[in-house]
């Protein structure tokens, strides 16, 4: 039997049996669409978290004062040590060629007021390099001035939300705000919409690190952000940072270094496992769709018993009848899978229109795997009815018994 004839015959019988065809297409397309959509959900969650981390930079090391004494405990976020981590310590790190930028950070809460308006916000003291390291954009005005890290300067960069609360729609540049009992001149406003790992950049203000230390009266830094010169240099940068601090702290390792990359990797693995689990669930639903295909095909076989008998009487062999029914099953599964891919594509487009912030997208392997599973389900679950059809006794089949 020639291939075009085989396809023409099966296509006609598929078109003929409308209800059966619709049922099978429905089952298959829903199965495939659910695989793709569920995978897209898992993948979207992963991309969202990874995106959050990448905003911070994957070539980043965070140095905390203090050290975990035993393994297993959390790093001392607010560690207490006899030796302070100072601005001079931080700037000394820049001597190593593997370290590109360093941002010493001092953090505290303080009321910021302008005229009669006052807000309690997080004040971050840092240097000019804080902006490129954290990839923070300035909307209006300038970043912090390029002055030595240990020099005070009464300038402030406001978060977008804070600016709105204090100044409304007026231009704040060059105006003075009061932080505790000190006065700072506004030199810039951050671009709106910044959020990183749950910290709202809009509700904070940035001042030079030396001014912050004076403001909060604390000589120790909260942490130091270290940017390696390249992603590959991050291990070298870590070694260098530990070595330099040890030298300056009388041979004691009293800082903790966390790499952004390690945290990112952990999250990535967890979420990837989640995606696989979710797509496994979807694959089971696809198998259920396959069983539905088998049922409908079995019904089709019993409906078409006389026709099968006729085909055999006209010289059709078992192999030909088998091939006819298998082709039908695979064509149906293929068509159902294509519709499913189309549906899921539309759904993804729609969700992306509604929630542009969430990176909802199926990984490339998802539709490929879904179609492969659909076709093999069609094949596997088509074999049983097809074999039953092929083995029919033509005499009994023709008499419709």
């Amino acid at each position, binding site marked *: *039997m*020639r291939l075009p*004839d085989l396809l023409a*015959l099966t296509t*006609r*019988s598929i078109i*003929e049996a409308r209800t059966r065809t619709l049922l099978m297409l429905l089952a298959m397309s829903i199965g495939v669409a659910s695989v793709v959509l569920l995978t897209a959900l898992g993948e979207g969650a992963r991309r969202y978290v990874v995106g959050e981390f990448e905003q911070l930079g994957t070539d980043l090391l965070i140095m905390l004062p203090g050290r975990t004494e035993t393994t297993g405990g959390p790093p001392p976020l607010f560690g207490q040590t006899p030796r302070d981590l100072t601005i001079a310590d931080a700037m000394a790190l820049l001597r190593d060629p593997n370290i590109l930028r360093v941002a010493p950070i001092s953090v505290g809460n303080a009321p910021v007021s302008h005229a009669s308006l006052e807000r309690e916000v997080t004040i971050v003291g840092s240097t000019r390099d804080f902006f490129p390291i954290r990839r923070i954009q300035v909307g209006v005005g300038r970043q912090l001035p390029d002055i030595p890290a240990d020099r005070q300067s009464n300038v402030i960069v406001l978060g977008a939300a804070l600016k709105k609360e204090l100044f409304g729609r007026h231009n704040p540049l060059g105006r003075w705000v009061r932080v505790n009992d000190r006065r700072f001149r506004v030199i810039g406003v951050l671009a709106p919409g910044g959020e990183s790992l749950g910290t709202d950049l809009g509700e904070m203000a940035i001042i030079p690190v030396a001014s912050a230390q004076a403001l909060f009266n604390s000589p120790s830094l909260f942490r130091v952000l270290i940017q390696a010169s390249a992603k590959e240099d991050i291990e070298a940068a870590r070694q260098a940072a530990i070595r330099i601090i040890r030298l300056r702290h009388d041979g004691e390792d009293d800082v903790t270094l966390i790499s952004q990359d390690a945290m990112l990797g952990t999250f990535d693995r967890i979420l990837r496992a989640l995606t696989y689990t979710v797509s496994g669930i979807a694959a089971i639903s696809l198998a259920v769709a396959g069983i539905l295909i088998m049922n409908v095909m079995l019904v089709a076989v019993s409906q078409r018993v*006389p*026709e099968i*008998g*006729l*085909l*055999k*009487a*006209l*010289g*059709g*062999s*078992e*192999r*030909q009848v088998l091939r006819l029914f298998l082709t039908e099953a695979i064509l149906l599964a293929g068509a159902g899978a294509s519709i499913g891919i189309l549906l899921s594509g539309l759904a993804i487009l729609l969700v992306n229109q509604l929630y542009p912030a969430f990176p909802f997208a199926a990984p490339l392997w998802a539709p490929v795997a879904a179609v492969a599973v659909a076709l093999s389900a069609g094949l596997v679950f088509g074999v049983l009815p097809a074999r039953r059809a092929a083995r029919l*006794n*033509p*005499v009994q089949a*023709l008499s419709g018994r």
Partner: protein
Amino acid sequence: MIQLQQVERDFEVGDETVRALAEVNLEIPDGDYLSVMGPSGSGKSTLLNVIGLLDRPTRGEYILDHTPTTTLGEEQRAALRREHIGFVFQAFHLVARLSAAENIALPMVLAGIAPAERQRRVQEVLQSLALSDRASHRPDQLSGGQRQRVAIGRAIVMRPGLLLADEPTGNLDQHSGQEVVELLEQLNGEGITLIVVTHDAAIGRRARRRIRMLDGRIDSDEREDAPA
């Protein structure tokens, strides 16, 4: 040339064995015209199915054109059916979704004959059956006589040497039945071996050779030279 040697066919009905054919010996030369008659359950349809390679004898040998068939595999038997045997059924068994021309072409589709050649042979057959103006009609748009003529066209399109008709007039009125029988006899006149299974004594009598079946055995086998 058809040779049946001690052919028997048993069916299992429940835990009982029913012998549908017993000790059947039959030789049918090429171009013969044979009718098989007998009461219901006498084994005439079973005989036709065995001769048509739709059924296998339980015992005995069936030789079709010098080929012993009982040891052949399913694929080879299908090929023999395709090339050498045409079937005409009481219930026509046309495929409802295919047109008359497509129904006639079906055996050639199964045989893998190229579309151009199929087209040519279908036209030829339609013409000889006076059905050219019905080529694109579906079976439900045809009369009973026309349907059976399409079925005969389908049976002869592969140019078989043997035409098996199982109650070909059973579903037809007197007039159409007469036409169909005349068509079959005309094909026999052109050299095809014709075997007709029938209840109708009037039709059975027309054959040159008449076999009566009773309880799975050949009860009588009369030969009478054609009036021509």
